[in-house]
């Protein structure tokens, strides 16, 4: 049932959650999400291209193009282990959002600003659940601010890109062991917070228009390492004997936001637009989540192996221009999990997924377009475990069957003039 129903208010924009592969979340535009989140070779006369491929922005027809929106998503995960009779489930709500604005400075140069939230994960298990030694709850947020420039070399070729400034934070809570409690039987936990962590990266892409129908695109977004140098760790329900060991203090930690390479093609045929994207996320950079308890030499470094692998996503989208005002869209994608066997941690309890998406845009006479999207992601059931939790010198395993699904509904607004 509904364990955690956070306010669904669309105004709570500064929050995002759920991840496709790993903790990446693919909901950066309601038009493109409706088309399976394709877009590296799509212009669609929308500022959403600033995210999908900045090179496309220079082909936007109007002087000014804006696009903004948000998605409400509900992520459900169910965990069961029949050996021990363990059952648990968690429901988390997220609201990834975006804002894109583009200015066509000349017929060969455009500048723009993109703000979006491509990473995030909130997972809130029942406190002290069976996997609480791995995670009670996690809430990771990263907002990208990306000014872009796009240059048209010819009607056949353009390129674009820009720096990315990231502002993010994480809170992470877990129990310090599988059995430690205070004198009243409350499980001892540690809460780690790192707020206002900033970092820089970049994105670049190009677009090739073979003819009036066929378009090719490539986009690269660099990896960004979020370094928290003055995070805090606070310990709760510590037994008296552990007061000296488990004392609140500073922590240092790093979390990588991996690089992504996307190549794709789109084909315009009368009122139909077909798009395909191939997406490669370089997750291998996430080898371990290491938390250095700098003020607690007795704990030292907590190294939590992740050992992610690079993973691919295959996206397909189609759009049908029903009338001048109405566009209908549908899409599908397959997203490989970057998690390798034995490294399935319940903080990112998801497997390979298949997404079914749809949506529409209705454009009013005054030029304002309303973009709607919905999606359903089904994650393959997985019997998985995390086998690298160290306890008294031995690795112990925690796992079971995880079943996950995400539904989302998004609302966006586009305006250009």
């Amino acid at each position: 049932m509904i364990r955690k129903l956070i306010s669904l208010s669309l105004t709570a924009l500064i929050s995002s959650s759920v991840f496709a592969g790993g903790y990446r979340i693919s909901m950066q535009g309601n038009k493109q999400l409706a088309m399976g989140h394709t877009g590296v070779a799509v212009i669609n006369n929308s500022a959403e291209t600033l995210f999908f491929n900045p090179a496309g922005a220079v082909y936007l027809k109007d002087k000014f193009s804006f696009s903004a929106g948000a998605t409400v998503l509900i992520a459900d995960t169910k965990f069961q282990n029949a050996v021990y009779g363990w059952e648990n489930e968690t429901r988390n709500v997220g609201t990834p959002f975006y804002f894109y604005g583009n200015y066509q400075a000349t017929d060969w140069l455009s500048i723009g600003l993109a703000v979006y939230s491509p990473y995030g994960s909130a997972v809130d298990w029942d406190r002290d659940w069976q996997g609480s030694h791995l995670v009670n709850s996690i809430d990771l947020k990263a907002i990208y601010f990306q000014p872009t420039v796009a240059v048209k070399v010819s009607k056949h070729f353009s390129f674009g890109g820009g720096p990315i400034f990231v502002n993010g934070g994480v809170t992470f809570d877990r129990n310090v062991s599988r059995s430690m409690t205070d004198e009243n039987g409350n499980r001892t936990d540690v809460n780690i917070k790192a707020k206002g962590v900033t970092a820089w990266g970049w994105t670049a892409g190009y677009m090739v228009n073979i003819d009036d129908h066929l378009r090719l695109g490539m986009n690269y977004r660099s990896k960004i390492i979020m370094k928290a140098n003055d995070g805090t760790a606070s310990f709760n329900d510590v037994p008296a004997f552990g007061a000296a060991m488990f004392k609140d203090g500073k922590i240092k930690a790093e979390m990588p936001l991996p690089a992504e390479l996307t190549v794709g093609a789109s084909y315009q045929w009368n009122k139909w637009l077909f798009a395909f994207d191939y997406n490669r996320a370089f997750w291998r950079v996430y080898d371990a989540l290491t938390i250095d308890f700098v003020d607690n030499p007795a704990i030292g470094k907590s190294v939590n192996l992740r050992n992610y692998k690079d993973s691919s996503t295959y996206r397909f989208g189609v759009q049908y221009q029903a009338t001048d005002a109405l566009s209908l869209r549908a899409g599908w994608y397959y997203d490989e999990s970057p998690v390798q066997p034995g490294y399935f941690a319940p903080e990112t309890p998801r497997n390979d997924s298949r997404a079914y998406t749809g949506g529409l845009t209705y454009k009013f006479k005054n030029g304002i377009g309303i973009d709607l999207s919905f999606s359903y992601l089904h994650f393959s059931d997985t019997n998985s475990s995390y086998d690298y939790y160290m306890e008294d010198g031995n690795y112990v395993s925690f796992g079971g069957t995880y079943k996950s699904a995400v539904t989302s509904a998004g609302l966006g607004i586009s305006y250009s003039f």
Partner: protein
Amino acid sequence: MKRKYLYILPILAILGVACEPSIGDDKINSETYYAGKADFSTYVAVGNSLTAGYMDNTVYRSGQKNSFPNILAQQFKEVGGGEFTQPSYADDVNDVGGLLLNGQPLPGFGTKMIVNMSTGGPENIKGTSTIDINASTLQKKAYNNAGVPGAKVFHLLAPGYGSLAALAQGKANPYFVRTATSGETTVLGDAMSLKPTFFTNWIGANDVLGYATSGGEGVDQNEAGGIDPSLYGSNDITHAGVFKQAYETIVNTLTSQGANGVVATIPYVTTIPFFTTVPYNPLTPEAVGVENIDQLNQFIGLIKMSLSAVGQGDRIDLFSKTEANPVLIQDKTLEDMSGVIKMGLQQAAAILPLTAEQIELLSQQLGRARHATGKDLLLLTSRTQIGADLPISTGNPVIDNMLKIGITIPLSDAFVLNPIEQQKIKDATDQFNAIIRGSASEHNLAVADMNELLTKAVSGLRVEDGQIYTADYFQGLGNLNTVLFSLDGVHLNARGYAFIALEILKEINKHYEANIPLVNPAVYPGPTLLPKND
């Protein structure tokens, strides 16, 4: 006309937000777990301290919750198990255990053991028991957990074992006195009054371990031919014939109404940290003090010389400055050599000024002393003895400093199981376990082979989640999360009882073709650690 599209907005939002994502079939459903051929509706646990949830030297309120039968009963609830009651410890207000009799502490029933982090040592927690046994606190109720700490196999059949009047004469068991439905009832009688449909029976350990924990100070009734248990001392080994008769009576009674169950075997002493934690040679040169060794060797050399004169020089050896040295122990099976030692000490008066009284005392002590070998088992309780001063000062500080227990004064035989004593224990354990298995086989009961389980755990036993549990004593933070034995070294802790329950569940699932969810020992608590003990 086109406005009607606007209605799609809220409809889509509701669709997306409200529709419950379908997650698919559950791995666990109403058919996942089943009782197989067994009926768990009324589960009764018969046994001794191990069944009662005794740990850290006593039964205390929070510890009793993690008795293995209580852990089992929670799992049985998945397959039709009913309510499971345990003797009330509501009167253990401060959760320290122990027992009082008519307001006075009952000797031998002290408070629970804790680890005092300021001294590093396991010790009894300060405080006074609030569990008072008197005529007004008798519970007079049969409980599903019928485990009685201290009970031997024949005690379960003994009328009066729960009589308050008999307790005052030391002839009853205070734990059973608290719950017995009458002064005349028996442990088994009260258990049967609940009409069990399923039972566990883990009895018999005290019939041999009482002897073992006393360092072999009792009588082996197999040798003595004692077949009247009412004449047994508490440290005696029960006669195998007595054991067989009592054990079979118990199992016949438990199964008489068609109940199924599990019986458990008795572990070897070599699987219990109480007997395996203290090495025979803990005296490293550093522990003794390298600078003291020459002086010590003068004394030891003197004794060795005396013994050598009568061909017994190999009883003791000079101290090594480089290797760990064995403990000097008393061995009552040795021939008394106090005469030659006395002579030697008298002749050495010039270098070792001792009074005639001191010489007499020392030679008596050393007359049956030898150095321990790897074949001796030193009891956990010897830890506080080894290296301790003599109880009475000689008045000479130099000599006092030299006369230390286990170094120059032999450690009492009551802290050591020598090979002869060990053999008696092993023989009795094997006999009893054969009786247990035979009885189980006769009644087609499941056997939880605790002896095999703990024997495997000596070198480390891997459980489902990959953790390896060993039959070690608490060693500090290094095994805080995996130690199975409580601080008394004999009984298990909460985690250890879960480990026992895990094994029993596996046996039940196998023998009765049931599927009951397992328990994970890892989430159960280990020892109580306190920053200080006050």
